[in-house]
């Protein structure tokens, strides 16, 4: 699924990383636990999380995740946006819950990691 289609599906707002809109995202992974995210070694995944802090960006950096979708209307801070810009990570948010976001994307064909 392309990032732009993912955002359309969940009424998502892109905050930074416009160059990623055409990215082909293979799988989605939803978690608020960064240690869980760090167990995923797959490439081209979308991180769906309610954890809106610098740690989410750092974790994405270490795992080579270049697309992050924040849920529950957790708008990112300026520091998060600066970090994401510097690391070339696309950062978006939606007002939907983690469950609703994941359910909608799954129904649209975004594959789970496991």
């Amino acid at each position, binding site marked *: 699924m392309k990032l732009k289609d993912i955002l359309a599906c969940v009424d998502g707002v892109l905050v930074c990383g416009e160059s990623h809109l055409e990215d082909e995202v293979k799988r989605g992974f939803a978690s608020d636990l960064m240690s869980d995210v760090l167990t995923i070694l797959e490439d081209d995944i979308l991180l769906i999380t309610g954890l809106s802090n610098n*740690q989410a960006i*750092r974790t994405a950096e*270490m795992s080579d995740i270049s697309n992050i979708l924040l849920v529950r209307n957790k708008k990112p801070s300026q520091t998060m946006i600066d970090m994401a810009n510097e690391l070339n990570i696309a950062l978006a948010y939606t007002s939907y819950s983690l469950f609703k976001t994941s359910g909608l994307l799954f129904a649209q064909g975004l594959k789970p990691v496991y």
Partner: protein
Amino acid sequence: MRQEYLVPAQDFSVAGVASSNLKRLLKQLNINPFTIKRIMVAVFEAEVNVIAHSYGGRIVCDLEEEEITIQVIDTGPGIPNLDLAMTEGWSTASEQVRELGYGAGMGLPNIKKNCDHLTIQTKAGEHTHITMLFCLKEGE
């Protein structure tokens, strides 16, 4: 080539900065991306542990042609029961650490999974010294 990075205790605002600097260096050295990811996951978990659980420490990286050795050495208080600490899901992390998204008790098991060889020297009341080895040659 040897590189050292300092890791302060309790300061989560810099969590991942040392790992991030190391990652930049590894990328410049043209190491394959999957190996870099394994190294970064292990080092980042170890860095977060130093910040969350110790009095501070440092990361020492020895980069060689065929292997990378990374030592994470803190100044205490040590791990009283290492078998327990290595168990998935076991954690003494504070509420503050959990709110930041860490403290799931997955760090040490995941470090073990990602390196080619791991040794941990620790004892209650002393420092913790983790040594991680990563082979760079294919098929090893």
